[in-house]
């Protein structure tokens, strides 16, 4: 599955469009990470636990989007966009969407 965030897969011709596909996941932080983050918060810097949490969730959202595209018979997703929103305190939603297409091999 080829992904890109421009309107085409560079260097390839799009043969067919299948419409918008998306994947999302809602993740909560855990108490351990919150505690570590609040300590790290005193001196500042990267909160590694949160970084890891968000990249794992993003990978999962992308995976779900890819599954949906594969079910439609697509072999690429163009114009991929990401969005993050916090639903309640301590939980954030990661959303990925794009257009499923078929490109030449």
């Amino acid at each position: 599955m080829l992904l890109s965030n421009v309107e085409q897969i560079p260097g390839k011709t799009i043969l067919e469009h299948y419409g918008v596909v998306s994947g999302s996941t809602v993740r909560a932080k855990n108490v351990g990470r919150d505690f570590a983050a609040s300590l790290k918060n005193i001196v500042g810097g990267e909160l590694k636990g949160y970084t890891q949490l968000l990249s794992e969730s993003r990978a999962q959202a992308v995976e779900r989007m890819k599954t949906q595209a594969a079910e439609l018979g697509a072999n690429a997703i163009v114009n991929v966009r990401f969005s993050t929103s916090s639903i309640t305190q301590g939980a954030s939603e990661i959303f990925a969407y794009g257009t499923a297409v078929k490109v030449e091999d």
Partner: protein
Amino acid sequence: MTAELFQLLLPWLLILLAMLTGTLLEKAHFKRIHRREREFEGLPTLSTKQTPTDREVSSSALVMGDVVVSIDYFKRFLANLRNIFGGEVRSYGSLVDRGRREAVLRMKEQCPDADLIVNVRIETSSVSQGGKKQLGSVEVLAYGTAIRFATEPALENS
């Protein structure tokens, strides 16, 4: 008596600790950022969708990098003071600067052999938005499409 004194002094001690270690850590981080930025000078990023050359593309991939950074206790204290008088909050400026540059570097590190990254988008969001205990931290995501050109440059008509 000593316990009360300790309680009174604790926030100030934390601020002092944060000022010293936070400043040191930030300096070290900026140093690392500068060094890695020099390493990746050969990999340009564009925010346009078109590739600026006619060279043949051999492969492309979606790449991304993200980071969550937090401000230190001392700078948060400064920012709160700044809230009273208004004006530019420099301490938060350096926080988002750190985050954005780090995220872009992580994106580049995903594709060290690419020739170009097009359509780079940088998105900033707050992790604990609206929370009672504001963490003063931001999440930055940078993503784009990495492009690798075919090894032979396109032949010109002679």
